[in-house]
């Protein structure tokens, strides 16, 4: 019998052709509100893809439902706009069946942390080779403005007319609590930072989780403005760089240092540069990364962006197929006739 596992994997397709942004742009009219942050994320990816040295036909975007989840329509790749919350599940099946593909998962904070929260944390735990981009606008956009699991406490929305009672998830903390091997944050106002982050996610073997702070200018305008606007960024965004001390501010006058209760922001001049934490994405213990995720409680205080954690750990889909290969190496390809005779038989 033939070897049925992942037939597509072994084909040699020759060198990857050069592409431009236009090659990655589908013929579909983009239907986000004018001014929506989703546009710049789309641009960042369409511009990045040609640099990644991947094939369009080997690239698949899977999304759930929401404004963010419209994303696949606009990429000239394969794509499926599935149902609300289930994109990580569908993508998991695809990535297992087809390890040759580069699978991206796109969804909003409602899609991936509310209805789809469980699929997300399990995909991260399994460490399956997906690039998961969560567009966090702290609101339900497509259904016109209800709070989401990342909306700030007290937020007034259509479904919380006198203010939201519950406290939000911190997507980075959730991901780290779920054993994610790659965890990062970027934002829709900085194309280069997005591209650097997406590139890293793409390169990661296993599940790469990226929170993209995204402005919904219709239902939650400016919610990240106090940290992402050009003129405040230096003071409000803490750009994590592997191997470098964590510094920020116009003169790099602020830094992050360890304290018993976790990491805190310090005045470098006060504590001395030697006490400033040197960022290491690769520590296997996620405690420091977790601690960094707790620095900012609301998008109004200095907030780390960049890669919090990036460690190597067995990728799920390839381990699953490796098991299959191993069994096949031991007992050979299955034979249907033998299978039918694998229980006691008798002749009549």
């Amino acid at each position, binding site marked *: 019998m033939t070897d049925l*596992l992942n037939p597509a994997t072994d084909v040699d397709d020759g060198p990857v052709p050069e592409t431009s942004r236009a090659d990655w742009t589908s013929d579909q009219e983009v239907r986000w509100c004018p001014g929506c942050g989703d546009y710049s994320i789309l641009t960042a990816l369409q511009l990045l893809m040609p640099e990644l040295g991947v094939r369009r036909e080997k690239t698949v975007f899977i999304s759930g439902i929401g404004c963010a989840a419209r994303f696949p329509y606009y990429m000239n790749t394969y794509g*499926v706009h599935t149902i609300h919350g289930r994109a990580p*599940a569908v993508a*998991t099946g695809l990535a297992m*069946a087809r390890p040759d593909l580069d699978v991206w998962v796109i969804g909003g904070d409602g899609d991936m942390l509310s209805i789809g929260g469980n699929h997300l944390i399990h995909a991260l735990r399994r460490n399956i080779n997906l690039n998961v981009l969560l567009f966090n606008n702290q609101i339900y956009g497509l259904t016109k403005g209800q709070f989401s699991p990342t909306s700030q406490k007290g937020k007034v929305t259509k479904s919380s007319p006198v203010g939201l009672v519950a406290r939000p998830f911190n997507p980075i903390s959730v991901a780290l609590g779920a054993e994610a091997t790659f965890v990062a944050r970027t934002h829709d106002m900085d194309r280069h930072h997005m591209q650097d982050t997406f590139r890293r996610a793409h390169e990661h073997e296993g599940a790469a989780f990226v929170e993209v702070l995204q402005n919904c200018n219709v239902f939650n305008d400016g919610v990240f403005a106090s940290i992402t606007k050009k003129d405040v960024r230096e003071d409000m965004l803490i750009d994590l760089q592997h191997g470098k001390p964590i510094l920020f501010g116009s003169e790099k006058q602020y830094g992050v240092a360890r304290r018993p209760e976790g990491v805190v922001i310090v005045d470098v001049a006060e504590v001395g540069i030697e006490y400033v934490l040197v960022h290491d994405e690769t520590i296997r213990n996620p405690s420091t990364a977790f601690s960094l995720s707790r620095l900012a409680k609301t998008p109004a205080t200095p907030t780390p962006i960049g890669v919090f954690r990036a460690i190597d750990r067995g990728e799920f889909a390839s381990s699953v197929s490796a098991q299959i290969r191993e069994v096949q190496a031991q007992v050979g390809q299955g034979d*249907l006739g033998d299978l*039918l005779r694998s229980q*006691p038989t008798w002749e*009549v």
Partner: protein
Amino acid sequence: MTDIAEAPSAPALDEVIIRFAGDSGDGMQLTGDRFTNASAMFGNDLATLPEYPAEIRAPAGTMAGVSAFQVHISDHDITTPGDAADVLVAMNPAALKSDLHTLVPGGTLIVNRDTFEERNLAKAGYDHNPLDDEDLAGYSLIQVPMTSLTKEACAEFGVKPRDADRSKNFFALGLLSWMYSRPIEPTMDWIESKFAGKDLIIAANRAAFNAGHAYGETAELGSQRVIVKAAPLAPGTYTNINGNTALSWGLVAASQLSGLPLYLGSYPITPATDILHELSKHKAFGVTTFQAEDEIAAIGAAIGASYGGSLGVTTTSGPGVALKGEAMGLAISLELPLIVVDIQRGGPSTGLPTKTEAADLLMAMYGRHGESPMPIVAARTPSDCFDMAIEAARIALVHQTPVMFLSDGYLANGSEPWRLPEVDGLPTIEVRYATEFNMVDEDGNGTFWPFLRGEDGNRPIALPGTPELMHRLGGIEKEDGSGNVSYDPDNHEHMVHLRNDRIAAIPVPEAELEEGSEGDADLLVVGWGSTWGAIAGAARRVRVAGGRVDHVHLTHLNPLPANLGDLLRSYQRVLVPELNLGQLVRILRAEYLVDAQPLSKVKGQPFTAGEIQFAITEALDGPAGHKEGVTA
């Protein structure tokens, strides 16, 4: 066929129904299984009915903990595990109390006398020893001190009494093997291989078995010894198979026949979990199994794999299907192949997880929002699960649609001898994928339209990885042809009809009357699923008694066979036995406006042939087209 040299002269019975009942910890399922296998190897036709509690291990000795296994063996072709037992083996008082009602009047009752002591009697709720009761006078009671005899027999091999106790089921097996002249070797071989390396256990089980066998020989049970000759089965290689194994193998076969890797996305649930277990073993066939975090993820992953070019399957039971409705709708909208297996169990809600029922048919038909039609097939016997799995795959792959496969707890766990098919004779399943442009765009360039249908009405599936054919799919309404999102009213109406019509147009075999039917009887019995055996058995009996009854059994529930309406209308009376409150019967009435009547049983158990026989006889006597349903 194995030869039974030792009992040439025992009187022959044409069939016998034996029921092993004991505590969950007594190994009754294993005992029944071994007896069944020996009988199968011997050449009997047979059918089995395992029944076990929902608890992993209910408190020892209680009624809740009773586990039973009924096996029907015969020298002719049979279809059910039997209406009532000829022999009941009761390993403890609770088993006697809970299962005595299954024994025919005058039947043989074999008890493990050692267990009828105060503590066990109390646990079973007896305030005295029932073995002393007059009630038992109507049975042929055989009291055997199985526990002590087993311990004795084991002692010489140095087995401790406590450990020896665990082998008493082999004593029972030995005794019954002697009584029914079963071959010994298959059991001995099995003990050797199953417990390989554990010499003491092998010794204990062998000793117990031999002691039981010897007990029959020596303890004046001579008169009890009979033989049930081999059945005249068609020549071939046979194995004894249950429904879940047959289904698993059928899926593996479908994968081989279609050349697509098999991908199972599943979440454990009784009685479907064994399929996950079984397929997890078949990595040699390139089978990927994925135990997902829940049922929705399971079907989601199967859809993803199917989109990637695998044969995507998800297996579950009713509560799981109830969760998968939205995702099935997605697969319908995407027009992707998928198999959804529902091993039905007692409902509603958690219901009776380990019991059988067939009350998910209407959910299979309608359990999704919007107009979302989906083909449905159902297996009729354990081994039929193999064929129907291939059929489900054929429909899914050729017609690019999710397919519901209905089985139930009775088929899943029940077993029957199965003549192995010729592997080379199985028909291949042709799957074609798009590899080229099928359209020219405004600028005259080649382009790909994922919903531009071919002559067969199928949309062209281009697998991811296919150069140039990049496209996007989604669950929002799409324009036929281009596949672009479309809110156009006329297109929506067109697509709704199209999705409906393309499923309705799937060719399915004509409905054919079952063997023994004449075509013009006074009553037509319409069945589906696991009721086949009981209906067939009942129809035979009715015919023997001079009644005129025909039987048609549906394997395809959606679409229904094209000739079914005419067939139904050609009968004065139509009776539809179902393990629900009347679901197929509603479909038939709506579809064909025939006054088909339900025969309903919802006890968590399969129909007996007797129950259906009774209903047929009643119906034959009643007026044609009568109004009220009957309840078994």
